[in-house]
């Protein structure tokens, strides 16, 4: 695996990826890095890591970006035990021993083994992935606390005054192990995504029945061309619902008050008046990687329907949230380029590139609190996969309290909600969540759920 050309290529990809994460690296540094590899060789991965960090980075803060990216391009030799994967109990035994000995190198290898054995989910090539959450749920390293403590004590590794420090020490080691597991899962997910891009070119049935998540580029382009006709159809349906609503229902209180003059006999039913203004719509769209096809399409569709509402505001997020209403309006002529424009012009990522619903929704609830009011219907678009981050349920609760309605459209099939790092069930308890895998499902939902 280590031909000279292969190494050069990996170094270039590593540098490209660091730049994409905002680390400024010039050609000079890349040349130095290549020389460092020449001087250090490839035999010792940790020396290589330090050597590349020394030549490519310029500040302490960049290291936390560098390490996971390095892990991705220069993975640990995927050794693991030969034969079948270790059982849970066996792995816990070895983990306990490594924690007691505080053997960092061994803990790193065990983290890789743990993700390999317990972090995988899904059964089809399009949908499987790696989850640190699931790995840790199965392995439950925190429950080894007492055992590790006793083991250290039994070995005479802690007594007297310092014995009071032991529990916190073990806790810190367990936390460090959790971080290692998270890093390993992230590495594998990223590794897969590359392969998935290729896997996604498979052919599928008509565009409006293709899962957004697995639709290739061509399919998505095809879908975009159906936005305008679909919007016209939906506008007609919405108009029908609006007329129906306008006819209104009987206002019982006012009918009774009116009936006082007729001796309490309700002669003239009073109809509720139609709401004076058209409703407002807010869209919160996860535009990261695989769900961006779904979000793009929905944004375009809502934009095409905008004159049905008094106000439409659209926000995009990955792990930070930014308003893109303007980008959407100005770009009506170029629906193809919408995704790229959002990526380029909106502030939707912080230090890393993976979705963080908790952060993004929290930021919305804080910065754009007044975007959602009693006349607003909010749609959240996304798969609710938080990459192990805190889902921040209070933020969603806050949005739901302010808005008239909140709906969540999830492009994943319902049976996968809650698997791996999906926190869909938790969100679904707070707001109405609908499966929305295809354009066909989406138009049915829009026709039914959009406020009139």
């Amino acid at each position, binding site marked *: 695996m280590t031909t000279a050309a292969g190494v050069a290529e990996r170094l270039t990809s590593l540098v490209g990826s660091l730049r994409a994460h905002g680390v*400024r690296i010039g050609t000079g540094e890349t040349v130095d890095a290549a020389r460092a590899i020449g001087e250090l060789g490839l035999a010792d991965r940790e020396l290589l890591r330090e050597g590349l*960090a*020394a030549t490519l*980075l310029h*500040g*302490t803060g960049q290291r936390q970006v560098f390490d996971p990216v390095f892990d991705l391009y220069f993975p640990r030799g995927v050794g693991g035990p030969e034969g079948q994967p270790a059982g849970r109990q066996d792995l816990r035994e070895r983990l306990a021993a490594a924690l007691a000995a505080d053997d960092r190198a061994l803990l790193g290898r065990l983290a890789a083994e743990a993700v390999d054995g317990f972090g995988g989910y899904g059964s089809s090539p399009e949908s499987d992935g790696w989850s640190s959450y699931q790995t840790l749920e199965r392995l439950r390293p925190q429950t080894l606390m007492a055992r590790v403590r006793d083991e250290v004590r039994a070995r005479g590794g802690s007594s007297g005054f*310092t014995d009071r420090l032991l529990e916190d020490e073990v806790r*810190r080691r367990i936390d460090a192990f959790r971080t290692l597991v998270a890093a390993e899962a992230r590495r594998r997910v990223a590794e897969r995504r590359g392969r998935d891009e290729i896997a996604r070119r498979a052919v599928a049935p008509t565009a409006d029945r293709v899962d957004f998540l697995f639709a290739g580029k061509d399919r998505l382009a095809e879908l975009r061309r159906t936005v305008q006709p679909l919007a016209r159809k939906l506008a007609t349906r919405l108009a029908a619902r609006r007329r129906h609503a306008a006819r209104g229902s009987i206002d019982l209180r006012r009918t009774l008050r009116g009936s006082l003059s007729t001796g309490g006999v309700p002669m003239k039913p009073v109809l509720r008046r139609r709401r004076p203004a058209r409703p407002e719509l807010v869209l919160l769209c996860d535009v990261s990687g695989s769900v961006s096809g779904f979000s793009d399409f929905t944004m375009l569709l809502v934009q095409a329907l905008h004159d049905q509402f008094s106000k439409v505001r659209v926000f995009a997020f990955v792990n930070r949230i930014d308003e893109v209403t303007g980008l959407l309006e100005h770009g009506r002529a170029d629906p193809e380029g919408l995704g790229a424009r959002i990526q380029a012009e909106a502030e939707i990522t912080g230090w890393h590139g993976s979705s963080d619903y908790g952060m993004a929704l929290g930021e919305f609830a804080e910065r754009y609190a007044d975007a959602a009011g009693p006349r607003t219907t909010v749609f959240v678009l996304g798969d609710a996969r938080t990459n192990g981050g805190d889902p921040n349920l209070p933020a969603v609760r806050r949005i739901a309290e302010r808005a008239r309605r909140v709906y969540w459209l999830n492009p994943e099939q319902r049976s996968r909600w809650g698997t791996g790092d999906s926190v869909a069930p938790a969100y679904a308890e707070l707001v109405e969540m609908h499966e929305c895998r295809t354009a066909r499902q989406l138009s049915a939902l829009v026709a039914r759920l959009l406020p009139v």
Partner: protein
Amino acid sequence: MFTSVDDVSARLAETGYLASPAVATTVFLADRLGKPLLVEGPAGVGKTELAKAVAQVAGARLVRLQCYEGVDESRALYEWNHAKQLLRISAGRDETWDETRTDIFSEEFLLTRPLLTAIRGDDPKVLLIDETDKADVEVEGLLLEVLSDFQVTVPELGTITATRRPFVVLTSNASRELSEALRRRCLFLHIGFPEEELERRIVRLKVPGLDEALARSVVRVVGALRAMDLRKVPSVAETIDWAHTLLALGAGTLDETVVRATLGVLLKHQDDVLKASAKLDLDAL
């Protein structure tokens, strides 16, 4: 200078400096690539000590530019010895001005400062630019010039180019961000607090009289303090001071009384002492 990363570790250890793998690797590369080394990290983790150790290993002279607010070219690079020049002028009354001028702007009247000293002469040198972040931004321009070409122009004497480049170490506490341009010239090394095992070895090396078990306890307590949310957590320098103190007191093991009596060696703020005492259950007696 070094044959391998292990060679760096081994030879630094002989001088009394115990390098982490990151430190050894970066020193090795700085030597091989011929680039200055920028070392950042909290106070007391051995940044300055590293430069001294490298000098010792290399059999090189240590030339140190200590930076501070207001340090300028005349302190960093060179200066003319005005007093001596005046004496010379008044002594040579029957010379022409041209002769006098040539004479007073010669080597004899030049006061070389660290940056110039470091690039002159053929003997091996380690140039330590210590606490670079304390200097004003203008000095960075000067450093950049010297570290790019390793030459200095003295108008009256001409351009002086290094015949032998020094090994350069810049240290910083990051009290101020150094410029991007300066950073780009350097290999970057962050030294943080050492891992437990390394710190134990440092303590054992620096305080030889301390027994293994006590050294271990010392490092564990320091580790616990670093995990607390304190205004200033103890660094390696404080760990060593504490070990010395315990040795001087003849403490064989740690107990509440000894720790309470000596906590001030580790922590410099009174509120840190109070907080740590509570967390370490020192008041339980």
